[in-house]
């Protein structure tokens, strides 16, 4: 491991001040990405500023909507007594992240700030239209998750900002949610993943929010598919059209985990299966 100093500030203001003072300093939350990047010499920080000891930053509050502290671990989210009931999609994505050991330390804020195209927690947050709260020593702003990601490893987070919370509005009661992820093995990073949130009235799709991961530089909404579906009756034909649009609207790459073609195929299939499942549920 390269050498760095390690700091454990107790307040957000102290963390921001340290970051400002120490050239080459990097924040660390759960460390499941940062430590690996340091080991692989992709990151050579002069200092790590830990956000793990700031009281309140891991707090989860459910009150119709929800406020999830950026430092809440994936296990905190899974084990929360009421969060799953309000946002089952969050739970499904959380359960598919890594292993127990990873989920016990990895944080939701870290998953977002790492800005991987395959960030698992991003998909439910995208379709739920969540916002992230970003704080400097003087200002606070709220940014839709959709606008947070700028590219692989890049976000709109400024160097003097810390993500403090993830904010969710109260969910619509009649929505149907599906999350699908394909990894090489279960605990793997996604080859491709899809989250779907539909407002259905019988077979009529009133509103569709669909997001996909690992098939573009950032996790993103599939707007073309949504537009095709909204206001239409879900049928074999519309579902198959949605599948085609999904396949052609994504821009995956070939890398160590999969190929461009396969990812395209999988996203199409996931959109199709999610819609079929939603249709099945709406009949119940």
């Amino acid at each position: 491991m390269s050498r760095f100093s390690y700091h454990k500030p107790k307040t957000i203001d102290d963390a921001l001040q340290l970051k400002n003072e120490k050239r080459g300093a990097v924040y660390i939350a759960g460390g499941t990405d940062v430590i690996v990047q340091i080991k692989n010499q992709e990151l050579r920080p002069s200092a790590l500023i830990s956000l793990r000891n700031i009281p309140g930053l891991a707090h989860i509050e459910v009150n119709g909507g929800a406020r999830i502290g950026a430092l809440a671990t994936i296990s905190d989210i899974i084990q929360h007594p009421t969060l799953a009931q309000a946002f089952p999609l969050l739970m499904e994505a959380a359960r598919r992240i890594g292993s127990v050991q990873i989920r016990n330390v990895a944080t939701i804020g870290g998953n977002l700030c790492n800005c991987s195209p395959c960030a698992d927690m991003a998909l439910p947050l995208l379709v739920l239209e969540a916002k992230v709260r970003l704080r400097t020593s003087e200002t606070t702003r709220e940014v839709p998750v959709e606008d947070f990601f700028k590219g692989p490893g890049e976000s709109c987070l400024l160097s003097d900002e810390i993500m403090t919370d993830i904010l969710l509005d109260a969910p619509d009661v009649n929505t149907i949610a599906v999350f699908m992820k394909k990894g090489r093995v279960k605990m793997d990073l996604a080859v491709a993943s899809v989250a779907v949130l539909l407002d259905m009235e019988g077979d009529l799709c009133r509103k569709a929010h669909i997001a996909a991961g690992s098939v573009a530089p950032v996790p993103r909404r599939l707007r073309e598919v949504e537009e095709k579906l909204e206001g239409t009756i879900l049928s074999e034909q519309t579902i198959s059209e949605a599948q085609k649009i999904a396949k052609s609207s994504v821009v995956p790459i070939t890398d160590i985990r999969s190929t461009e073609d396969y990812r395209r195929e999988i996203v199409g299939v996931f959109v199709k299966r999610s819609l079929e499942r939603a249709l099945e549920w709406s009949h119940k």
Partner: protein
Amino acid sequence: MRRTISFFLNGSEVNVTLKDHMRLIDCLRETLNLTGTKEGCGEGECGACTVLVDGQAVNSCLYPAPEAEGKNVLTIEGLQGSENRLSFIQKAFVELGAIQCGFCTPGMILATKALLDSNPDPSDQDIRAALQGNLCRCTGYVQIVEAVKQAAENMRGPE
């Protein structure tokens, strides 16, 4: 930078002076000479380095040592039964042939402990989910799952 931290290791308080950039596994193996915890991949994939921190399974290769301050850390060395005998989990692993080369075993056993502490009667699926982050390249997992079931039975005692 160096710092001295104190934490509870296998039930007793320890004071350790360590370098800021050390990981918990470095502190355990190199500073404290507890070499029961193994390093496999060093990036959180294989689980050989699993220890419990405040009762939760974590990869000690991804855990910054300075974060252990004030925490309760349990390693394989701390998992003894009475009179220095094997614990019921270790016994089950030995009896059911869930060990071949043994490199993954300390991690497997601590992940099992974390599981059984929260779920004393796990299904096969629960066991496989709890051990998803622990790779074994010898046994093929069948014996391991059986050993965990046996350990759960041992723990619950005669019915």
